[in-house]
């Protein structure tokens, strides 16, 4: 009997170890290995259509210093990352407060609010393209009600196209941020609100003194994930503008793909990918650190 008990204890452990090994194996093969291969490639002049690829040391990294297209793409990426993160989180907090009820209609609305997040970026791009092109739904409606005299180039002028992409991405992310803030709001003990009421604290004052500090952990998660999502943004831009007009909406991720598969410069594309990885890590760590410190101070 004791032997049987020992066997029963060992079997689940072995099973868990196997599952963990499987997960670790997948992580190593599909994440760590490609990362290392990309790092190695970044020190070569790898070209998919060339028989030999040579080690070029730091040449790819030094070339980045004078690469105007890279600089422009980084500017676009950072502008979108910070602009969209602020907008999506503001919308998320607003929607979460509106939807923080328990009856059926609010539960349905919560599902609707989350809908943009579950759609594929490519589908989102195509849907918004029909809205934003010169003959699109938006221009047609605005012309019909007399707001515009002629169609506005929502995707046809550099600034408007960047703004349009920002709006679309903020719309997508707001589904996610709404759910995060809703969860954060529901974790606030009701007693706190009751006490605030007794103290005569209402409206914006209650939001500032009770709600905002209490949803700080949600803010950390929401802001960090929003930032990382936008820093690697590719699909929506590829469909909506393909980086145009004149590369004015080209994100760094889009630039990397073009370098690798249009210009055949896989080595240099890998170096730019390493830069984007480092930048994303730096931004994520800095922002997470700052928000964590804020959580403690609140």
């Amino acid at each position, binding site marked *: 009997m004791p032997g049987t008990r020992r066997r029963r204890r060992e079997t689940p452990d072995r099973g868990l170890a196997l599952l963990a090994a499987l997960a670790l194996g997948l992580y190593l093969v599909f994440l760590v290995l490609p990362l290392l291969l990309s790092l190695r490639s970044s020190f070569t002049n790898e070209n998919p259509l060339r028989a030999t690829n040579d080690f070029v040391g730091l040449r790819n990294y030094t070339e980045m210093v004078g690469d105007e297209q890279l600089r422009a793409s980084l500017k676009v990426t950072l502008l979108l990352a910070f602009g969209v993160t602020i907008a999506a989180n503001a919308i998320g907090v607003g929607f979460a407060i509106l939807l923080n009820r328990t009856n059926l209609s609010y539960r349905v609305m919560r599902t609707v609010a989350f809908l943009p997040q579950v759609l594929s970026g490519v589908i989102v791009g195509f849907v918004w393209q029909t809205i934003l092109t010169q003959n699109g739904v938006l221009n047609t409606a605005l012309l019909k009600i007399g707001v515009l005299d002629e169609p506005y180039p929502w*995707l046809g002028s550099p600034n408007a196209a960047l703004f349009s992409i920002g709006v679309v991405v903020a719309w997508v992310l707001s589904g996610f941020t709404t759910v995060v803030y809703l969860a954060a709001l529901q974790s606030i003990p009701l007693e706190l609100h009751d006490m605030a009421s007794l103290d005569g604290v209402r409206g914006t004052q209650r939001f500032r003194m009770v709600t905002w500090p209490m949803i700080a952990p949600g803010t950390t998660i929401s802001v960090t994930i929003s930032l990382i999502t936008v820093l690697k943004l590719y699909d929506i831009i590829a469909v909506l503008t393909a980086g145009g007009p004149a590369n004015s909406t080209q994100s760094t991720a889009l630039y990397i793909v073009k370098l690798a598969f249009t210009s055949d410069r896989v080595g240099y594309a890998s170096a730019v990918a390493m830069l984007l990885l480092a930048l994303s890590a730096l931004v994520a760590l800095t922002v997470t650190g700052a928000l964590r410190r804020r959580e403690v101070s609140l």
Partner: protein
Amino acid sequence: MIRKPLLAACAAGLLALTAACSGGGGAGGEGDETALTYLVFETPSLTAKFWDDSIAAAQAEVPGAKINKIVAPSTDRDAYAKQLQQSGQFPDLLQSITPSNFVGAGLLKPYDKTWIDANFLLPSANTLKGEVYIPPTNSQIVPQVYYNKELFTKAGITAAPKNWAEFLDACAKLKASGVTPIELGGADPFAASMPLVGIVSADILGKNKNWLQDRYADKVKFADANVVTAVQKYRTLVGNGYFDKGALGVKYADSITRFTGGKSAMYPMGSWFLGSVPKENADNFGSFPWPTDDGSVVVPFVGGGSMAISAKAEDSAMAENFGRAWSLNPANLKALIETDGAFPMIKGKTLDDYGVTVSQVFKDSYAYVGQDNNKVNAIGWATNDDALPPGLNDAFYASAQALFSGDDVAGEMKKLDEAWKTATQ
């Protein structure tokens, strides 16, 4: 209790995945059949049915060939072929790719020149370093200027412009009549570049057919004064308001609808547009070559064609036989002529031999192919020795878009030279 079945399922899944991965090679087939992978692309004209029918017909002429169709996710076949090459899945047959992108790596096998010479009107149209990797079954003019006759008449224009001055005059009259003179699908980079392709092909390549070879040899540059002066013409068209102000927001598909719907009067586009001319009022449309200063005719020509063969195909002889059978099938050309505006280039055949129904504007445009005129390789579209280096097309498209909203012609041309230097290093 549930862990063992779960583990078993995981193991089975992994085994299945491993089996699927190891069995994913292109070659191999049932019985005596040899499987060949064939990269194609679909458009509203070249539908899945077109490819399936054309494959079945060619397959019937090549016993033992089993074709596995791969459809590119977009019309950019080159980019997808490169991705497939990166992942070790380079197809055995590749429809309408740019051979210069792949020949350097030894990935393509040339066709037998005797067969090419025997079957095509311009056997050297697709010649790359002395070899032909794509049978020149058809050709295109990129761009021609298509125009709406009714809108011309309403604006008081009695004939199609023959030179640059007449073209500007026509634009001014059309604008005065309240019509957008020139349509531009600027949201799609390739369509945005059409006027620039016309200008550079007509004004620069028209005067020096070897200009692109000279550019490769570093004897000329985009920033040279003659190129800058020519490109300045595009700024003149933009500055005078001859395009819709929001043209960079107009998709290529929408630009066709706008032009055929009478919202604009002229449309510089590749001759594939002929497949979109509405049948019910086809006679209302005409065409003329992109105008030059002195009125001389320059035809920006592209030798199109069918498929390239992978040098690594398991049975490259069978792959070539399939390519030959597909290329010479009149039924394939019929569809391409009617729906894609392709100009047929098979020796000894007239339009009637294909049993096609084409408009007068098609016949007028096709006439330029047969005439003895100044044909040049359309910049950015040629797939022969005059093909641009990898990545240059994107730079050219970006310049075209940038020059729509900015006037730094010299700066944009300098950027093209820098992009050229990087691409050819």
